[in-house]
């Protein structure tokens, strides 16, 4: 659902988080984002990208620091508000889709928010036509390929018309054609997008801004074409230049 907020829509200040005491996963993260931005969060495996995304939607609320999403501080009491405005596309589509047909799954979110049945149907139709997945409408969610599942997952989120869309490693396990298709789709979405990935070429094609995380801290935050061209920066943090650049 749209907040109508323009300008700053995400504010993270001095955020730290640990699953186990004394083993901090995120430390002193500061990040501001505005409506309509596209942000890539990059970093090696296991450095806390997914953890950060889960904090944004309140799947964990025992962090320290300040976290304000869509105008609401992330606290257990505010979770309903926040989740109305933030869509989260899971890394693993099998965890995202659980109803019998794609159509029902897309309708699940809007129905939960008490929209009228006409409005629900309209949301479903819009999401389906936006993603060009008419052929999947009646399909059973567990009889689809990886690429189809990813698109269906995204549809379930788009139907909620969120202000912020979070995608955790969306390009993983997609073949080149599906990957290209997904890039085109993401570039059509106007909401604030936050995409975690260690597929730097994917970030290159979908995000204007990039944030590099290592050891639980933000190492760099800036324009994608600056950060992803900085070979020294990337290699010191266990990443490599995007293929599209290293070939040149």
């Amino acid at each position, binding site marked *: 659902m749209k907040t109508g907020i323009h300008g700053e829509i995400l504010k993270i200040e001095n955020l730290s988080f640990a699953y186990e005491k004394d083993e901090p996963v995120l430390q002193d993260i500061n990040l501001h984002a505005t409506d309509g931005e596209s942000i890539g969060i990059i970093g090696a495996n296991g450095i806390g990208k997914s953890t950060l995304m889960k904090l944004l*939607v309140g799947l964990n609320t025992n962090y320290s620091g300040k976290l304000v999403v869509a105008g609401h501080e992330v606290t257990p009491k505010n979770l*309903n508000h926040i989740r109305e405005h933030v*869509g989260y596309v899971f890394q693993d589509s099998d965890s995202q889709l*659980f109803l019998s047909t794609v159509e029902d799954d897309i309708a*699940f*979110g809007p*129905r*939960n928010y008490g929209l009228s*049945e006409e409005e629900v149907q309209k949301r479903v139709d819009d999401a389906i036509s936006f993603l060009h997945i008419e052929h999947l409408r009646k399909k059973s969610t567990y009889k689809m390929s990886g690429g189809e599942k990813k698109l269906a997952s995204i549809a379930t989120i788009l139907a909620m018309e969120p202000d912020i869309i979070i995608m955790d490693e969306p390009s993983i396990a997609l073949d080149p054609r599906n990957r290209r298709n997904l890039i085109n789709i993401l570039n059509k979405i106007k909401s604030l997008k936050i995409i975690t990935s260690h597929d730097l070429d994917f970030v290159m094609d979908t995000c204007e801004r990039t944030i590099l995380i290592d050891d639980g801290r933000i190492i760099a935050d800036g324009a994608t074409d600056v950060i992803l061209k900085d070979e020294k920066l990337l290699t010191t943090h266990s990443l490599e230049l995007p293929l599209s650049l290293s070939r040149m």
Partner: protein
Amino acid sequence: MNNLHPLGKLLTCVLYIFLVASIDKYDIIPLILMSVYLVFAFLIGELSLKEGLYRMRLILPLVLFVGIFNPFFDKDIVLYVGNIGISGGVMSMITLFIKGLYSVLSAYILIATTSIDDICYALRVVKVPKIIVIVIMLIYRYFDVMALEAHRIMTAYSLRAPSQKGIHYKAWGALVGQWLLRSMDRAEMVYESMLLRGFNGEFSFKKKALKLQDFIYPIAWACIFVIIKLRIIM
């Protein structure tokens, strides 16, 4: 049949299983007559018996073998077919077997003609607690995923132990533990994904309007079942 209200189908199925189970253990005639429901549903619903038995393959053995020791305990002759005496134990083994089969098949009829979402909706209509409905839904959804997960673990194991037939008994504990942990992780993630889309424990499915046939269907079957059960016409 797919278009009937899920509640009617659910109630019919539950009543059927209940009545079949409560038929006396030596009373084979009403039990045979009870098959009319299964025959009807398989024909009208255009279901395949083979597919049904296949889908239910995991629980069939359990329900079929519950009565297997009865013949050893109950050796009194209760019936003669020609001049062969059939003991109470054999008889009750047969009826238990039939009851198990009927129950499984009627559950299959429900699942095959009604989506799980509709079944959950119907369960909520009759006020089954939310948490139970959610668990049923997750188990159903994760049946296939758990099977897949088990298959993956087995494959990973056998690729690294190619000379072994099957799985060494010492590895079973670890593998089963792995399997349960992974399956639980999965279930938790699905639940999180539901929460993130505004789920508050209530299924807001499309409300279904009740039509005349939605009442007639369960009531007609209830009458037939009771007539057979009480042996009113025999």
